[in-house]
């Protein structure tokens, strides 16, 4: 049977992609950020997952407002990253796991999560940058991937409670899969930031740190927030906490912390990293 080894939640700020492309990891601005990932690399080298199931939000690469799914699951052999319009070099392509995707889709719809299914799906920086952060270097990706996109572009967004339940349903489905696979869950985005309006540049360190505490030991405590409250407390784009909650939902109640890292600022964002190992 498949086993979920743990989850990594990480920011996905586009500028990180430029830093990687330009080899700036040791520069003073970047070093404190990239150093946070070493402990995760060491852990991944030990647990060696076969598949990464990645909760992320598309920022207008694959989905536009003409058709905007709330939850979309990739079911392709391969996912391509592409030009997003503002100069980030494209990351190439990522191998899919379509048989696992379809198992997940069957299970989710049976559990009343009526997801959109995608046999063609471009994956944007919110998918590609976390992959590059977790598995740096130029070799082939060591994992196959299943993308799960959550709408955070156009309100109404799914609630925190709903995203957590989606994660739980994903966790149950994966652990019922009949192949002997080790699966890593990834949640991308956040933490607090706001790009638009006269409130641009809003960051809330206290709220972010509280969220990282709760995600570890008491994630249900965060499921009572409305999205309006999350916008107020974490900024318009801080609602990306939804992907962290979905990822946490896929784990067991009891987890141990592999890494927890927080750095302000990367671009306009409070950058967070939380790696949790599933209890046996």
């Amino acid at each position, binding site marked *: 049977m498949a086993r979920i080894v743990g989850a990594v939640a990480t920011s996905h700020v586009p500028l990180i992609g430029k830093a990687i492309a330009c080899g700036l990891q040791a520069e003073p601005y970047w070093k404190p950020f990239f150093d946070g990932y070493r402990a995760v690399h060491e852990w991944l080298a030990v647990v060696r997952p076969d598949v990464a199931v990645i909760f992320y939000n598309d920022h*207008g690469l694959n989905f536009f407002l003409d058709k905007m799914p709330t939850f979309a699951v990739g079911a392709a052999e391969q996912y391509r990253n592409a030009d997003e*319009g503002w100069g980030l070099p494209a990351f190439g392509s990522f191998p899919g796991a379509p048989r696992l995707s379809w198992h997940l889709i069957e299970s989710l719809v049976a559990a009343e999560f009526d997801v959109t299914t995608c046999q063609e799906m471009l994956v944007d920086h919110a998918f590609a940058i976390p992959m590059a952060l977790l598995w740096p270097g130029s070799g082939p990706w060591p994992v196959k991937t299943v993308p799960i996109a959550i709408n955070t572009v*156009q309100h109404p967004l799914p609630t925190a409670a709903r995203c957590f339940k989606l994660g739980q349903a994903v966790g149950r489905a994966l652990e019922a899969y009949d192949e002997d696979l080790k699966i890593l869950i990834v949640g991308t985005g956040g933490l607090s930031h706001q790009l*638009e309006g006269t409130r641009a*540049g809003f960051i809330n360190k206290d709220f972010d740190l509280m969220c990282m505490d709760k995600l570890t030991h008491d994630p249900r405590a965060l499921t009572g927030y409305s999205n309006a409250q999350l916008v107020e407390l974490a900024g*318009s784009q801080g609602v990306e906490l939804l992907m962290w909650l979905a990822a946490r939902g896929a784990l067991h109640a009891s987890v141990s912390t592999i890494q927890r890292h927080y750095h302000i600022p990367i671009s306009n964002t*409070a950058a967070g990293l939380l790696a949790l190992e599933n209890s046996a």
Partner: protein
Amino acid sequence: MTRQSAPLIPGTTIFDGEAALKGYALNRMCFSFNSAENRAEFVRNEDAYCARFGLDARQREAVRRRNVLAMIDAGGNIYYLAKLAGIFDLSVQDIGAQQTGMTVEAFKAKLLAAGK
């Protein structure tokens, strides 16, 4: 949560159905900038490009003035507007500074201060 009961957050525009309806033409044009060819076409003939996507007078004027707050007011969504900003080589700090009426240096200092 209904829109009516959502608290108003100062300096923040919730991109909801009403904004999506109002901003569709502008956002659709910005979405087209995922293609380098389309970005070049916009630079070659901005008027014709905006006309092709049916921007209304307010949206056209906001784009002409490169004014992000006015674009948001006309229904623009920041994720799509970022693709337009990319054409002018504006970073999210540049956009943040413009919207908050700060210098880019002061905006960056504000971000740094949030970490203290």
